[in-house]
């Protein structure tokens, strides 16, 4: 059973009003920002399910935009996310989709664009108590929470890639807590997701990138 400590009960410190519709929204957007790892010019959110129906009264829109601006769940600037985004020259758009059925009621798609035209799309779910899951990257179904240090490797699905990834990690003494592979089709784009209890040293990335079938590496540190 997961450890429940003092500050899991008396906490989290958060911007209200709702752990799932506000704090969870901040967390999923912040994860999308960290995964993107580039300057953000434009963000488009699509809200589904309960997010689509009750986002205004829960400030879900401000929370999502706040996360993209890099605010944590206890940052009092979240309330002013709209004017701050304007000052930062960040374009934003909200699309409300009340028709599409998603697996989880609190779901949002977040599409980020850099000034040089790089685009990445992420789907997040807010699963309760402020906890979130990323369940899709660029149309490929994945699953991770961001509660651990997470390495996301975009690769071509070819033999030897996973061995290469684990070798690079083992060379730097990184202990793997969880590791999973997600792919579209055989031989197409795939994602390897590695979660670790400790910080993953950035030097791992340089070595990993040397393999020609590794296209992109995202690193989220706890």
């Amino acid at each position, binding site marked *: *059973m997961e*450890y*429940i*400590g*003092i*500050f*899991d*009960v*008396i*906490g*989290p*410190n*958060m*911007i*209200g*009003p*709702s*752990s799932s519709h*506000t*704090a969870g929204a901040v967390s999923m957007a912040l994860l999308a920002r960290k995964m993107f790892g580039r300057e953000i010019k434009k963000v488009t959110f699509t809200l589904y399910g*309960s997010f689509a*129906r*009750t986002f*205004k*009264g*829960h*400030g879900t829109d*401000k929370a999502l935009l706040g996360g993209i601006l890099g605010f944590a769940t*206890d940052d*009092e600037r*979240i*309330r002013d996310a709209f004017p701050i985004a304007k000052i930062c020259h960040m374009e934003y758009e909200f699309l409300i989709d009340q028709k599409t059925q998603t697996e989880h009621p609190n779901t949002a798609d977040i599409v980020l664009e850099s000034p040089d035209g790089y685009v990445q799309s992420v789907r997040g779910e807010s699963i*309760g*108590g*402020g906890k979130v899951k990323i369940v899709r990257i660029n149309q490929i179904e994945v699953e991770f929470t961001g509660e651990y240090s997470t390495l996301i490797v975009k690769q071509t699905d070819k033999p030897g890639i996973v061995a290469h990834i684990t070798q690079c990690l083992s060379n730097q003494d990184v202990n793997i807590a969880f590791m999973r592979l997600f792919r579209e089709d055989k031989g197409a784009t795939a994602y390897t997701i590695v979660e670790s209890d400790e910080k993953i040293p950035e030097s791992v990335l340089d070595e990993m990138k040397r393999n020609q079938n590794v296209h992109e590496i995202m690193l989220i540190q706890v």
Partner: protein
Amino acid sequence: MDFTNAAELLEQCEKQQLSISEVMEEREMTVGEASRQTINERMARVIQIMEKSTHHPIEHAQKSIGGLIGGEAKLIDLYAKERAPICGMTLSKAIAYAMAVLEVNATMGLIVAAPTAGSSGVVPGALIAIQEAYQLSQEELQRGLMNTSAVGYLLMRNASVSGAEAGCQAEVGSASAMAASGIVEMLGGTPGMCMQAASMALSNLLGLVCDPIAGLVEAPCQGRNAIGVSNAFTSAQLALSGVRHPIPFDEMAAAMYKVGRSLPFELRETAMGGNAGTPTGCTFCLQK
């Protein structure tokens, strides 16, 4: 040092001659591997947020984003200053503080979920009002909070603190049990009295449904936080007087969870029943 239920917690207190807050702190350091310094720093931040969120709306009332609440804490404070308040000064303050925290929450301000955002007013409202009335130190307030976290941990572990899972009794009911126990320790009661108070508080709110109007964390949530505080005060006073609740805490927690699971879907945070399902409640839904 770990414990998984109230019986084990009380056994630890007895064996080592420690208070509930001390056992919880020991557990955080041994099982949770946190240093005393880290605990103190995080606690100081929690207290800072709680102090601001209990007091700020009394001076600066603000309308909630959903539009259902705002300004209540200020009104209660004014009434208590102008006339002899029915609830007495300490409870009047505690009610105003608890409702203030919900106002901060509903205006996208900073709060400490304790144990949830919807029930975040009960623990700070009750404990800070007691601290002020009895002129207790920050250290004593911290002890009280640590005590509440032990009760909350047991309810999270062995029952539920989620309105969607087990109704408002699991949110405000749990917060009220936590606060009742915390007050007893702050006022010098024994660990046994703390669990008596918690057990009574749970029992008094058993069956309370979760029926947020328009699905928002505003009403009736804010009023329920005031009741959570009042119930915590009453239960703490009964326990300190030596009044006993016949059902031990562990059985009460199990009963609360069982009642919660048997509540119909409409009364578990779906905004379909109770207050939310009334003709007037539904009109707020349509405005969204």
